[in-house]
């Protein structure tokens, strides 16, 4: 039991094994993402009662909050796999770190856009220089910097290593985003959902939110499998196992 997990992880680090693994996992992850997404959106938009103060406008949290969590989660994933890539020089870790960046940037962008859509009727402004909003914007710039640095190099692996280093430097921003509502008492509201304690939210509103959280997690997994798989094919182009796949595709 204790031996096969590290062995399996080592095997997974090899590009052909990962490619096959990603191809198997992707449809399942995508299916689960769609399933939880539909359930969560139905629960959130139809079943959950309107808020006593905000009416129906609060329902944007079912997109906003899971995206915001994912923007931090994906950055942490990128930072950790970037660290693994730099320390152990595993090619797959570089691929995972670099292919996570556009997904995370998209989640951050969605968070900012939905937040400002909600902010207009509720706070009376699209944007304010509140600590949470500013640190989330900085997170978006960090993602863009990582993507930009990765593409500035001609050698892709070298670019991936440099961008991983930048991602590790920028990881300091993730706790700042998370704790910004506790450290600075400005406009954005504080923590409502608490994983290990009492959440200040009724169950009818909480369960669709959790379903959406699962949906975004599975979507990330599916998207990462697709992107990393494609990237590995491009990186390993010319090797035997890629040629076999290409010939099998051409034969169909």
């Amino acid at each position: 039991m204790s031996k096969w997990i590290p062995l399996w992880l080592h095997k997974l680090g090899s590009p052909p094994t990962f490619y096959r693994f990603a191809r198997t996992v992707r449809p399942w992850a995508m299916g689960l993402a769609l399933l939880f997404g539909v359930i969560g959106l139905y629960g959130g938009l139809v079943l959950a009662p309107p808020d006593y103060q905000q009416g129906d406008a609060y329902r944007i949290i079912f997109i906003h909050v899971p995206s915001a969590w994912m923007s931090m989660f994906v950055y942490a994933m990128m930072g950790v796999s970037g660290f693994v890539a730099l320390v152990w020089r595993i090619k797959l870790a570089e691929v995972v770190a670099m292919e996570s960046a556009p997904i995370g940037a998209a989640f951050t962008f969605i968070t900012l856009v939905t937040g400002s859509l909600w902010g207009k009727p509720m706070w009376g402004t699209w944007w304010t220089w509140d600590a949470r909003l500013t640190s989330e914007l900085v997170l978006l710039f960090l993602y863009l910097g990582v993507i930009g640095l990765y593409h500035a190099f001609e050698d892709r692996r070298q670019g991936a290593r440099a961008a991983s280093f930048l991602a590790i430097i920028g990881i300091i921003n993730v706790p700042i985003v998370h704790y910004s509502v506790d450290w600075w008492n400005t406009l954005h509201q504080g923590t409502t959902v608490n994983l290990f304690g009492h959440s200040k939210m009724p169950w009818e509103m909480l369960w669709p939110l959790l379903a959406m959280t699962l949906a975004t997690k599975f979507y990330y997994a599916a998207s990462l499998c697709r992107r990393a798989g494609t990237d590995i094919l491009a990186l390993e182009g010319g090797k035997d196992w890629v040629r076999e796949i290409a010939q099998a595709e051409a034969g169909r």
Partner: protein
Amino acid sequence: MSAPLPQACAAMLRRDLTLAWRRRGDLAMPVLYAVIVAVLFPFALGPDLALLQRIAGGVVLVTVLLAMLLALDGMFASDIEDGSLEQLVLAPQPLALMLGMKILAHWITTALPLLVIAPLLAGMLHLPLPAMPALLLALLLATPLLSLLGAVLVALTAGTRRSGMLLALMLLPLCVPVVIFAAGAVAAAQEGLPWFAPVAWLSAALVLAVVLSPLACAAALRIALDA
């Protein structure tokens, strides 16, 4: 037989300062740029005294930051071109220490002239006199911080050809807290409040950066040059 560390550091510093002095014209560029940007503000916003007084501190800070960003690009450029940076990587002396000296030389050649010109810019924008020490102290702490943070990013882009805009994009997230605390000190001084706390934060960040940033810079350079 390698030179002892203090001598090697002094030689590095002397070399970079001499090189900068031989091309004095380049040293004036960031200063000119800062003057131009600061002069444009009254034209764009109108010469309303109260408005200029209120924004003077922030405008000078951002102007100095942009001028430093302009000069940052060239920190390692000529050394990469003629291969002396690779020799530095191979040298027996610790790379982080040598890079620290290079950063110091860069700060002396770009940030010090800006620090000299900053009171003039602030005066042109009618910054109230009591806020001037706060602005200068904030700049004195913020500019080395920016040099140190920027050096890591410049080292990361060392292997690329087009890096100007990319550098700005990468530096922005890192310099946001620096600007916030520096501007906070000036704003507090302008309102007659105690401005020690933001300056203490800046000092703490500077101490941290002085220790960590040359190490990070060395690591980044090894990644970027490792082709």
